[in-house]
């Protein structure tokens, strides 16, 4: 049985709009799970249900076997970090971090020890007397994290915690979050719309769309076997084409040519997908039959490579090819799809 479990959660706003429609999610102890999706997909609402700020119209939320669906937020003992940091502006760093411990009626010595420990772990000891206004975004984010972690929460909830930081800091912070999360062994839910961020940090990712989970799996699994076209687009597949299965691992495209596909699936018709990086382009017709002829429409320079937009008989394709192999717009090229790079959805 999972440690934290959402069962058939339904949320509506104004009694009309369905935000979550029967959402199910199980998270193992110590795991870092991301909710990934574009805005309006229900990921933040899901987090707010877990936090206790949104009461679901139906379904249950279980933690360690206990039903917390109706437990108010302040009795859940969950750590919370927001995109806006949400530090208490009127309190110093020390008092911000001590806030939750004071509410737990711990002795002053115990509070001081635990806050100092946490400030040490998060590299904030020198800033204990500062006010939030006097600190940079990255420092504030660490205070928010320290404040959430010091209460030793049963769950850590992160709502787009890195979105307000600049690119360089974001990279450092995400390693930092992962390090703390593993060191303290805290089960964590991480909400984000940034696919790269989320794949780099998560044990498992739940990709959400329209108030439901489309796919819930390890990043590597989602990357190599997206469940459907939506997920495939989300993780960087841009080329899609119709396929019909003709035998074990053999598929036929709309022109009638046959492809070999390693990821076999026993279906009649399906959609094949491939990333721009995985298409091999050549100027002359290769000997094997699988190559798709096309014409270069647009060429864009990407730095390491060129990106080509091709028009072919099976539809438009986007392909990347190294710099030393440049094709002029209007020229005829052949696109080959390595059998191991085609995914079926």
């Amino acid at each position, binding site marked *: 049985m999972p440690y934290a479990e959402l069962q058939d959660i339904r949320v509506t706003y104004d009694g009309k709009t369905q935000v979550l429609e029967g959402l199910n999610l199980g998270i193992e102890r110590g795991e870092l799970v991301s909710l990934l999706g574009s805005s309006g997909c229900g990921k933040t609402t899901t987090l707010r249900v877990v*936090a*206790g*700020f949104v009461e679901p119209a139906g379904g249950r939320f279980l933690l360690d076997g206990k039903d917390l669906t109706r437990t*108010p*937020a*302040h009795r*859940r*003992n*969950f*750590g*919370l970090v*927001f995109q*806006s940091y*949400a*530090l*208490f*502006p*009127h309190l110093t760093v020390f008092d911000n971090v001590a*806030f*939750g411990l004071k*509410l*737990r009626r711990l002795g002053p010595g115990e509070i001081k020890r635990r806050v100092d420990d946490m400030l040490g772990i998060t590299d904030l000891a020198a800033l204990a007397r500062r006010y939030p206004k006097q600190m940079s975004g990255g420092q504030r984010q660490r205070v*928010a994290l320290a*404040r*959430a972690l010091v*209460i030793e929460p049963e769950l850590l*909830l992160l709502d787009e915690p890195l979105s307000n930081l600049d690119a360089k800091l974001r990279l450092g912070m995400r390693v930092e979050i992962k390090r703390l999360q593993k060191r303290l062994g805290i089960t964590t839910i991480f909400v984000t719309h940034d696919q790269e961020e989320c794949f780099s940090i998560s044990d498992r990712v739940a990709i959400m769309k329209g108030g439901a989970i489309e796919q819930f799996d390890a990043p590597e699994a989602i990357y190599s076997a997206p469940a459907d076209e939506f997920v495939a687009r989300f993780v960087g597949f841009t080329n899609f084409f119709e396929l019909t299965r003709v035998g074990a691992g053999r598929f036929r495209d709309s022109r009638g040519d046959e492809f070999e596909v390693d990821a076999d699936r026993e279906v009649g018709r399906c959609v094949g997908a491939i990333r721009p990086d995985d298409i091999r382009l050549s100027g002359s017709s290769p000997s094997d039959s699988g190559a798709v002829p096309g014409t270069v429409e647009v060429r864009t320079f990407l730095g390491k490579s060129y990106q080509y937009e091709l028009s072919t008989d099976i539809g438009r394709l986007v392909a990347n090819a190294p710099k030393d192999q440049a094709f002029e717009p209007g020229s005829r090229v052949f696109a080959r799809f390595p059998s191991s790079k085609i995914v079926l959805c």
Partner: protein
Amino acid sequence: MAARRHLALTAFAAFVFLFLAAPLLIIAVTAFGEASTIRFPIRGFTFEWFGAVFASRSFMSSLRLSLVLAVYATLLALAIGVPAAYALGRTTFRRNKLLRSFFLSSTFVPGIVIGYALFKFLVIGLRMPVFAGLLLGHFLVVIPYVIRVVGASLEQFDFSIEEVARSLGCNRAQAFAKAVLPNIGSGIVAAFMLAFINSFNNIPVSMFLTGPGISTLPRTLMSYIEYSYDPSVSAISVLLMAITVLLMYGVERTMGIGTLAG
């Protein structure tokens, strides 16, 4: 050329400023004249008229009433206005706009109309005691200021701060007291002072709701001017201005006058 235009602008600004300030300055000066009617420029110099104000029982009792009334009306307005402003700022219902306008509506209605309506309803209809009627009337006059000013400081407030407080173990009331209140404190102080000034200086509503022997200071001053024209009127005006200026200074120090507009 540019310098000359600059000069003209400065002169014009000075003129406007003089036009605004001169009457007040003249009144203030006349409070110190020795003659028994108000005249300017003054002859001699005396504090006698201030003495007369403090010796007058009707002035002193109405000053006391005005102060007590302003304090109670303001506290009542804070007790109702702060939660109202919080609710309006916290939620995003469509009917919010309507509610907000409703709470601010008494600033759009002429004071004299409010006064008359309350007179008809509270004094004639319900036979309410004079002080209770005055209190309700002044509460009505000042509550928009509370909602406006506290609302303005809540607009700057990030409500996720309150949610974090709840996640750390605060119930609703504790979260409001420990996370919200400390960060809108200056707004509440400013609201208090503004509401106080507006109650303390109010005439139209008080006109209808005061009764025999019970009168607020501005009301007493008005009826006094109808029959007498001695510098004690100026003296009391100076006192009223001094209290108002002091409070406005307080508002400026806590929040900035700018928050009252817009």
